Every structure is written in C-alpha cells, then in structure tokens.
C-alpha cells in the first residue's frame, strides 16, 4: 500500500534529519548589507570557480540585521561573515560578547560613492550640499532667520539650477545610505547655509540638537523616502521624470542609459574622484568575520584572503570595474587578513 510506503519514507527523512545535523557545513555563510551584496556575490562566484570549495551563500537584508545575525553566537548554524555598509557599533560588539563571539575581524573592502541622478533626457544638475539642504531641509536660513522651507523649484534654491519643481527620492531611514546622505550632504549643507549656527543659537549651543534639527527634512511631499532598493527609486524616477534620485555609484554606472548624474560641488562622481577624495559623498564598506569560525568552516580563510587580493579588490579588479572605489590602503588590509588580526575596541 502506497500510504505505508509514504509513511515509511517520511519517517526515514525525519530520522536522517536528526542524525545528519551533526555533519559539517562545507560552505561559507554570509549575510548583511544589500549595498555590499553585489560585490560579495562577484567574489563568491569567482571563489567557487577558482577553488575546490563550493561558492559561499550570500544573503542580503541590511547591515544592521547582518551584524545582529553575526552576533547570535558561535557554531555551524550561525553565519560566518556579516557585510556592512556602516561601521560596527559598540552595541553590536556588546551583543557579540554576551553571546560568546569574542574576536571579530574588521575588513574594509573599499569605498562606495553616493550620487544624485536625474532622468537622462532632462536638464543637467550641478549641486552643492547647500542647494540640497535649501531644497529639502525643513527650516532654512533666510536673511539671518530660520523660516519654513517654501522653495518649490530648483531655480528658487539657486538661480543657476534649472527651473524645475523640486522632488527628490532619498533612501529611507532603514538604509545605511541614509546615514551618509544625512551627514555628508544635509548636515554639510546645513552648516554651509548658516542654518546650523541658527539652530545652535536657538537651542543653547546644543550641537546634537542642532544636527537633529538639520536632519529634519520637509514633510510636504517634496522629499520622498524610498524604503526599497535602488530599482524602486529608478522605477519612481521613470514614472516622474522631473525627480532627482539618490543612488549608489555602481547602480548609476549600470543604468547610464536611463540616468544622468549630477555633480556635487563641481566634482563628477567617478571611482577616481572618490578615490582621490574630491567627491564628498562617499563611505567605506566593510565585512566582519567571526574569527572562531576560521579553520572550522572550510574555505572561510581562503575566501577572505581572496576577497582582499589584488585580483578582486585591487584597482583593476572586477569589483572596481563594477563601481567599488578601491581602498588605497588595501596592502595593509591584506596583511591584516593574512595574519588574522582581530579588531581592537572602537575608538
């Protein structure tokens, strides 16, 4: 009777499930930032091709979630590497310690540029952080006083900009990109326009409060938070061609048929201008390795060494071709990875 056979095989699977859980995992497990995800998959794919290990499994899901998973504990059922587009926080390190994850290796793989882009057929834009702040900030400085932002076109912000209505798609607050956008563009613009000093004066010289007020963007629908990924921003931009979107440099470089990039303070974002430090809006990308797993999970040590090798992360490597700005101090990173140096306390 088929039913008997089926039940027997079901039982067999259940037995195996409990018995085989003791076997070693033979591939590296990676999770974290969706910004680092394409770079990690490029390396994982090349690693699978060139080594006798299976390609590592790479998941996205966000920097914070990835670091939290890294800190869940030590053992085969926990991840080996967390990709992150922002630096690890003390709270993460504390969680790690509490769960027995003592040694973490911090590897900086390079830099990522954040660009402003608009529809390719529309007018070109040349921004400064002050322009962005005056367009999107909740309160702006006008004749030495703080007023609610009433600008509706870019030309009102800066007469050199096109006479086009202001509409910006910016990364939502759960993105690591938003942090960079806030500090490198909004706060910088806030200081440039003098609004920062006014905020500070109004709040008894409280710098933190002033920064917070700078980061309070206008809520009248002119600045739209996008919580999805860059493909969503691109789709929104396609639907409303007068908008400005915030993208990663690599995303823009793969979609130059639809997007044109805006300059920031007169600098065109390229891997070269970011590497030289001319383009202001960039941030380092990291991955964090659970050192207790090195030597236990097959291929983990080889993978991290391969990732930082010149063949991958170097200035002519595939990662740079995809849009990663190669780290000028890559040689030091390679040495650190080869010597398996754990990260010290955050300064």
């Amino acid at each position, binding site marked *: *009777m088929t*039913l008997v056979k*089926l*039940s027997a*095989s*079901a039982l067999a*699977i259940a037995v*195996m*499930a*409990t018995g*085989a*859980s003791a*076997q070693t*995992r033979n*591939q590296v*497990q990676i*999770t974290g930032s*969706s910004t680092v*995800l*394409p770079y*990690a*998959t*490029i390396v*994982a*794919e*090349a690693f*699978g*091709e*060139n080594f*006798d290990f*299976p*390609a*590592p*499994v*790479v*998941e*996205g*899901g966000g920097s914070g979630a990835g670091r939290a998973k890294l800190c869940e504990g030590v053992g*085969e*059922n926990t991840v080996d590497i967390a990709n992150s587009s922002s630096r690890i926080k003390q709270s993460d390190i504390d969680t790690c310690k509490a769960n027995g994850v003592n040694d973490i290796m911090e590897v900086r793989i390079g830099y990522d540029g954040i660009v402003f882009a608009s529809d*390719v057929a529309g007018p070109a834009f040349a921004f400064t952080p002050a322009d962005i702040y005056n367009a999107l900030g909740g309160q702006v400085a006008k004749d030495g006083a703080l007023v609610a932002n009433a600008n509706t076109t870019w030309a009102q912000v800066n007469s050199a900009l096109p006479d086009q209505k202001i509409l910006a798609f910016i990364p939502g607050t759960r993105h690591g990109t938003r942090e960079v956008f806030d500090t490198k563009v909004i706060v910088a613009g806030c200081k440039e326009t003098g609004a920062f000093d006014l905020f500070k004066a109004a709040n008894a010289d409280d710098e933190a409060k002033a920064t917070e007020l700078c980061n309070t963007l206008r809520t009248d629908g002119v600045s739209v938070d996008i919580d*999805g*990924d*860059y*493909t969503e921003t691109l789709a929104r931009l396609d639907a409303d061609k007068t908008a400005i979107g915030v993208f990663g440099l*690599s*995303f823009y*470089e*793969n*979609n*130059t*048929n639809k997007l044109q990039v805006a300059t920031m303070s007169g600098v065109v974002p390229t891997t070269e201008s970011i590497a030289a430090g001319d383009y202001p809006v960039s941030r380092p990308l990291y991955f964090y390795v659970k050192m207790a797993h090195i030597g236990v999970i097959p291929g983990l040590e080889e993978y991290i060494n391969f990732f930082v090798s010149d*063949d991958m992360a170097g200035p002519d490597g*595939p990662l740079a*071709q*995809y849009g990663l700005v190669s780290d000028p101090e890559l040689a030091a990173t390679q040495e650190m990875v080869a010597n398996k140096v754990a990260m010290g306390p955050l300064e």
Partner: protein
Amino acid sequence: MTDLSSAPGATPAGVRKPHSLYEVDALTKRRNATEFRFRLYGIIAIAISLSVLALMLFTIFSDGISAFRQASLSFPVTLTEEKLDPAGNRNREEMAKVTTIGYSNLLKENFAAYVNSQGFEVEGLTDAMIGDMLSRDAAAQVRNQVLADPELIGTTIDVTVLANGRIDGYLKGRVNREEALRDKNVTPEQLDLTDKLVDQGILTVAFNWGFMTRPDASDQRPESAGLGVAILGSAYMMMIVLVLTLPIGVAASIYLEEFAPKNWFTDLIEVNISNLAAVPSIVFGILGLAVFINFAGLPQSSSLVGGLVLTLVCLPTIIIATRASIRAVPPSIRDAALGVGASKMQTVFHHVLPLAMPGILTGTILALATALGETAPLLLIGMVAFVGTHPSAPIQGFFEPATALPVQVYGWASRSDPAFLERSSGAVIVLLFFLLIMNAIAIILRRRFERRW
C-alpha cells in the same frame, strides 16, 4: 399580493385586470431591466479580470520571452602551455593555480586575434573592446574544460562561449547605439562589430538551455544567470512537502473524520486547523527559524528546512481538503461495508479512502502549487540568497543550500543591471509553466477518478 395590487395597471378593487402574457407591462419591464443590468455587471467584472490577466501575461511575456534565447560566440582558442601550465607537468593541482583571470586574458587575446584575422573594418575598435564582448563566464567554462582534460593544452580548440550581456541585449533590442554612447559597459564600435559577426555566423542566437540549468550569477554577468539551483531547490522542497504532508495530513483527517469522538477537544482541534490555514505564511517562517534551525540545528538555506516550513504551511489546507472529500463519500458505502462484517479500519482503507482519493490528490496538488509560489517563509530561513553551486543529488542535497523559483524572481528583480529584468520575467514564465502543469495534473486526476453517486 399587496404589492401586486398597488402596482400600476392593477385595479383598486384588488381584482387582477386580465391581460395578455405577450404584452409587456411596466413591472416586467423593470424586472427584465434589472436582470439585464445584473448580467452586464457580471460581464464587466469578467472583462476587467480578463484584461488585467492579459495585461500581466503580456508584460511578463514581452519582458521575459527573450530570456529563453541567448547570444554566443564561437572561435578557436590556442591553449598555450606557458600560460596555462607554467610547470609543464599537466598536474591538475598546479594547473589550478592559474585562475579564471589568466584564462580570461588568454580568451580575450585569442578572440581579438581571430576577429582581426577576419578582416572586419570597424573604425575606432580596439582589441580591449573586442575582448570585452566575451562574457566573464567564458573563462570559467574553458578553465573547467582544460582542468578536466589537461591533454588539451598546447592544442587549438573551438569554443562556444556566451557573449556579454550588453551584446546579447543589443541583439534582443534592449540596447541601442544611442544608449551605447552613454553606457560605459558597451561602445557603438562593439555594436558595429556585432552586426558583422552575426553576418559571418560567429555570433549566433540560440535557445538558452543554460537558463534552465546554470546556477545564479553575479551582477557582472547577467548572461550566464540561470534557474538551475532554483529549480532543483523547488523540486527538492516539493518532494519533502509531498512525502511529509500526504501521510500526516491523510492520517489526521481519517482519524478526525472517522474515529475521533465528538467532544470539545476535537472541536477545538477543528477550529485550530481552520485558523492555521489562514495564518500568514511568514509566521511559519519565524517558527521554522526558531524550531528547525536554532533548536534542531538543521543547516540554514537548505531545502530540507524550506521543505519542512512549507509542510507546515500546506498541512492545514490539505487536512481541510481531505476531510471534505472523506465526508463526501456517502454513508451508505460505510454502512454496507460494516453490514457485511468489515471492521471500521477495513471500511476506511478498503472503501472510503479509495473513493476519496481523487479529492485528496487534487487538494494536495493545489496545496503544493501554493507552496511552490511561497517566498515569505523562505526569507527567514536563509533561502533568499545568492547560491552559486548546485546542490547534489538527494538525500545529501536536501542538506545543501539552495534557493527556490519565486525567490529567484525576487532576487533578480532587485539587481542593478537591466538585463536581470528579462531574467526575472523569464523566471516568472518558468514558474507559471510549473504551476500550469501541476494544476493540469490535478484536473486530470479529478476527471479520471471522480465517482458520482
């Protein structure tokens, strides 16, 4: 009758005025009009749903059908010894030290030399541009071929490798010259050369078997991305779901329907099963993470955990469907069996279950079809990931990482290269195809075995 009497045309005395049936009075006219309007609403509703379906199918097919065709380049490659086997001893271990980067350079040089020897005249075309027309996947393909057969070194072999995604996109109409000027991944000169290569038969477009068999690829090579791992993962999960849900679901249903006493406890179970069927599938994902991965220690991203979670998603639906079809077997069959001396269990297994089987199978297949399209519960157990290596054959393969078809659709839709949009829609077509097959099997089973009383 009172409303009739107040209707126009009726006499005040309540006596019906005789009139012919052939004569349409106002009331009949109103009733007919209401009925006509109701039919019209129905037709409009159907028209709206059909047009939405047509629109969806049209967008998916117009975006995705091109994923089933792929451009590839054929040219001779001389496998020079000093580059591929510097030690010269054909030792596989030592040859493996030459990475795909070395192979990639060799292929680019060979292809550029071959194109130049053909005498195409394209202004401004450099060797680097010619080399970049090859897919990055080509080097891995040739490297594997050489490592499998080291005797190839020193000879000249004909290879057929994939063309770069942009060249492929040009042949499919996704990339044009105007855009190529702005695109740093492709130049108009390369497109000019593409036209010439197509004329010469060096560049050909053929059915894309690789789309069904290859694993996922990184963002730099959309041309080599395939559904191989996803199809295997989905198939493994369906196997696990089938093997687990059918016996558990049928056994539970038979017991509840035929043997269980009717009391508050079985009522409670019944209510719970109905409620579980309505629980969002992501909840089962959280449960799977907590129980199967964190507690039982099963490997994450594996199709085993995925299958177990989908089993939980399917079970309530299957139990409900099975109970319904057992209940549909007339009591007279049971009475007859019991009457001639069969035991309760004989009655169930010899008479009730065979008659209920078509319904059970249909319910099971439809539940499997739903499970095939589930993404949410897989998100939490690590199956929404880049998996670059095929899982091995069962049973070992159940423990190895894999993805699933809907996961691949989602993953590709968020990639930056526009070529992945085509792949994503192509994956939807494959998914729809599998769903269609499963539903067709359900219909055939029902038609063949259905018994009417």
